[in-house]
């Protein structure tokens, strides 16, 4: 949701800054501060623009952190088992380099297909209509990656004690993101990889289906049976983090863990008769 210069986006800017007006006491003041006025106008445009040209640079900064982390703790691996010996690893270059290069090319192919042939596929026709603060579109549909959270926002249609439905929706929406940051403490399992956790695997895929469902619901008008479905999906979303993760880690019986990454790889290759067992890898070390 970028420049509030077109109809859809200016609606979006109104909605986004509207979240803050839900905060008790200071909400209205914060909203006006963000908008630079009482409604979406040029100051808002400037502010959102500054934010959006700044974000890529911040992402570039995070990429630097990522490379630093890669050098300090190494790559993770699908077995979730610590590196035990030299045979568990291979050099970053050429092994990880060439593999990632191929992955990047596959991504670029799909990306280029959309850029050159379907540039408007993920957009909305309203983005080509000039913004008019007096006319907000009937259904504001955010960008596709916001849809699940938008569905959660609109799923809270009831008041909870002193929290009215608007503040409740905003809290639920930000809470759904906050959950991701709490995962290290919510997950009680001693096994790191879902490969060895059949029940967790099931719930993980249910969670994926739930997120896609929420995404679809976010693109539908908030009326009729859609609201109920969104409420159920939101319930499962939070239950996954707050109930499934802590409880399942305690009661689930994981499958047998291999002793090392090497063993895991050799076991996997036994049937298919894979390569030479000289050096097995799933966790290339970072040097190189």
């Amino acid at each position: 949701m970028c420049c509030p210069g077109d109809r859809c986006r200016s609606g979006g800017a109104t909605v986004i800054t509207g979240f803050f007006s839900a905060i008790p006491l200071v909400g209205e003041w914060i909203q006006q501060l963000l908008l630079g006025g009482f409604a979406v106008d040029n100051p808002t445009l400037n502010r959102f623009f500054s934010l959006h040209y700044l974000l890529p640079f911040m992402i570039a900064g995070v990429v630097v952190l990522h490379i630093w982390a890669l050098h300090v703790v190494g790559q993770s691996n699908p077995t979730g088992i610590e590196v035990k010996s030299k045979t568990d690893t291979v050099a970053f270059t050429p092994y990880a380099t060439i593999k990632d290069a191929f992955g990047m090319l596959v991504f670029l192919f799909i990306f280029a297909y959309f850029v050159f042939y379907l540039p408007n596929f993920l957009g909305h026709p309203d983005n080509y209509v000039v913004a008019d603060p007096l006319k907000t579109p009937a259904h504001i549909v955010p960008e596709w990656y916001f849809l699940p959270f938008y569905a959660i926002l609109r799923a809270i249609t009831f008041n909870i004690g002193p929290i009215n439905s608007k503040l409740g929706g905003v809290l639920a929406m930000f809470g759904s993101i906050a959950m991701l940051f709490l995962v290290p403490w919510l997950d009680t399992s001693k096994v790191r990889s879902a490969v060895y956790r059949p029940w967790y695997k099931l719930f993980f895929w249910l969670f994926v289906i739930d997120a896609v469902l929420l995404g679809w619901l976010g693109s539908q008008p908030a009326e009729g049976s859609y609201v109920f479905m969104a409420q159920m999906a939101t319930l499962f979303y939070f239950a996954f983090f707050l109930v499934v993760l802590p409880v399942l880690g305690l009661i689930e019986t994981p499958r047998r863990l291999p002793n090392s990454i090497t063993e895991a790889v050799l076991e996997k290759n036994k049937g298919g008769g894979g390569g030479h067992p000289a050096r097995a890898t799933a966790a290339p070390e970072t040097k190189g």
Partner: protein
Amino acid sequence: MTPKSGDRFSDKIMLETTTARQRISRGFGMKTILTSLALLGLVLAGTAAATTGAIAQEEAHSEAAPTHFPIHEPKEMDWSFAGPFGTYDKAQLQRGLKVYKEVCAACHSMKLVAFRTLEDLGYSEAQVKALAAEYTINDGPNDAGEMFDRPGIPSDYFPAPYPNDQAAAAANGGAAPPDMSLLAKARGVTRGFPRFVFDIFTQYAQGGPDYIHSLLTGYDEQPPAGMEIPEGTHYNPYFIAGVSLKMPNPLSDDQVTYDDGSPQTVDQYSRDVSAFLMWAAEPHLEARKKTGFRVLVFLLLFGALVYLTKRKVWAGVAH
């Protein structure tokens, strides 16, 4: 995806506690998973059935008071600019320009299109100059501080028929005719699941021109008995936002004279003006698709080479 739970637990302890119970739980686990999956499937199917039922009920609502618009989906036409190798048909764009100039321009502006860009339609520089000169452009202020009129030049933009949106709305029963520069991309009827998935592979991106063509040819249809058409509006089952709109049927057969022998029908006019509006909204469509094809071929070849290299590199390592 799974978070690391820290090193405080040694893998060894894990192993000892788990292997013992492993045998028993495996067979049992599989069965429960399958049962729960089946149950879940039932629940999902139930919800889906309930919702489709509800939606069907809504649609069964009386024909005279529809709740979903447009009433009819746009008709999908064959456009020369569709698909990976699509190009504009210049003769068609010239006809479309003629329809715009002689019909639509009376109400609709096209403020973002400059005369000079009309060379894309196959006109020579001199022709564009002559075409621009047909228009009177209000310019200024001059040294005396006054606005003045002068003939148009190629760097001018199409002048608007009304001085402002309010005047346009006042002259058209309260609804300002939208600017046409981007209109072909600013309208599109939602495709819905699963069609939007197929659209990725068929590269369907002609929702705008399909909509405009259907709208312009949709005035013939009669409203169902009992439907209320608000005063001053015109029934059109293809209109995206209601049963009727403020624009009267702008086209009739033989209204615009074509010099190239194309049929002078409403259908042909609509097609031509829709194609022209697509060009106005996306003049670089051909270059985009042409470049895209080269880029994809390059990525395909490069990707294949990198894939083979990767296989070679990893060949000696178990993974």
